């Protein structure tokens, strides 16, 4: 729990330090701070859940769950529900600290919309972590997969460079990360849109989440 609380607070502070030092003419802090905040949420929730099912597999409790009648969907959604508290805590901490450290001037509706996006991103990132965890038989196999998800999420999701300026193959990769969809929504919020006025952009992230959840459920194997 210390890691869950301290890590996001520290990381947002590090971003603040970086932005204060980045004296670049025309640098739009408001555009980037939410994206960095979203990335911190995505990073933490993904990494924390990427090893959970592998640990269950290694300890053989996963097999025992299956033999005792638990279904794949029950195990995956059970973990997601159990980690909802994590998603909520991380989202609240990151958003609160951003609001305190950066003078963004968002109204209550915009902040509420950002919280919803952060929370959805956290849940979807956890589903992605469970999916990655499914593919590994040992914790050692999970760790190399983490940068393969986290780094493309930062480079190709539109945080640094707009996605449409990337080569086509990179644009395809960008759509495999939940950060891409969260970025689309956050751009709409920064531009003054709400959840009600641009439904299309806001639906993409939860739809992506459902697809990842389905894949995580189908790929959850019993065999050790």
């Amino acid at each position: 729990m210390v890691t869950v609380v301290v890590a996001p607070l520290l990381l947002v502070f590090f971003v603040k330090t970086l932005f204060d030092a980045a004296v670049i003419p025309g640098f739009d802090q408001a555009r980037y701070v939410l994206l960095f905040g979203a990335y911190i949420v995505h990073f933490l929730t993904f990494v924390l859940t990427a090893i959970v099912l592998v640990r269950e597999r290694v300890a053989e409790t996963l097999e025992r769950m299956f033999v005792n009648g638990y279904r794949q969907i029950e195990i995956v959604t059970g973990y997601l529900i159990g980690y909802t508290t994590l998603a909520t805590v991380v989202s609240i901490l990151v958003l609160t600290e951003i609001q305190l450290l950066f003078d963004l001037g968002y109204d209550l509706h915009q902040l509420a919309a950002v919280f919803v996006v952060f929370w959805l991103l956290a849940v979807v990132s956890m589903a992605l972590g469970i999916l990655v965890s499914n593919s590994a038989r040992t914790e050692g196999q999970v760790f190399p997969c983490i940068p393969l998800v986290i780094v493309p999420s930062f480079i190709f999701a539109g945080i640094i460079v707009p996605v449409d300026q990337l080569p086509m193959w990179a644009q395809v990769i960008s759509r495999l990360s939940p950060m891409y969809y969260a970025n689309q929504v956050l751009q709409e919020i920064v531009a003054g849109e709400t959840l009600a006025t641009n439904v299309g952009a806001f639906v993409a992230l939860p739809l992506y989440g459902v697809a990842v959840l389905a894949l995580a459920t189908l790929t959850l194997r019993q065999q050790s």
Partner: protein
Amino acid sequence: MDLAISVEGVSKHFGEVEALDGVTLDVPRGSIFGLVGPNGAGKTTLIRILVGALRADSGAVQVQGVDPFTEKRRVRAHVGYMPQAPVLYGDLTSRENVAFFARGHMSSGVSEKVAAALEFADLSDAADRPVYTLSGGIQQRVSLAATLVHEPDVLFLDEPTAGIDAELRHSFWLRFRRLAGSGVTLIVSTHQMDEVAHCDRVAILRSGRILANASPTELFASGGATVRIRTGTIEHHVALLPEDLPRILREFDLDTAVTRIEAETATLEDVILGLIGSDGEERGAG
């Protein structure tokens, strides 16, 4: 015969390792069936196939008349599986562990079933303590409670007495016999040869093959005897079956020179070790 389990020609390999090779056996309902063999004999592999956790490469398996791999949910509602190690959540109490595994089978009446399972396993004192604080033997009892909380018809127990003291082993076998008496079928794997005597029938495995499938009495009767006959200063060692003894005595024309005849009867452990050892020699010569 009313069979709880039927295994016919089952083989399983992991890469180049042949874990099971043409295993065939039947287990009558309400009996205690032992799987005996050294480490790596294939006992755990066979049990995991029987609970549907693994698919056999070939052969036919039926548990309660159903294929356990293709019809997992049907089979698992009626079987319990106790893994070799006490697979439990260390941070949860004994009661919470048993309740968690119970909820995979049922959505109501969990508290009552959990209480009954804890009582059966004599866990009243340890029910509300985190599992990581419990000794290995008590953790085994928690694992047993989690295995039978849903009152299964068939129990698969993978080395349930490994690492526990003699007194607890004895109490475990009393519980197993009580379960069998109530109609539950038990398949118990062990590498402790003396536990074979508690079983109604035993299959001896080595390197994935069944060397013998018999009752403990039949196994014991198949053992031989070593007779030492001293005539004067010469001691003759004669290995024979009990029915050979009169012939040997006639050969020696039993007279006053014979001062002593000793018969050392093979124990059940000797018989099993002899079978395993001779199979190893045949494989070495081959």
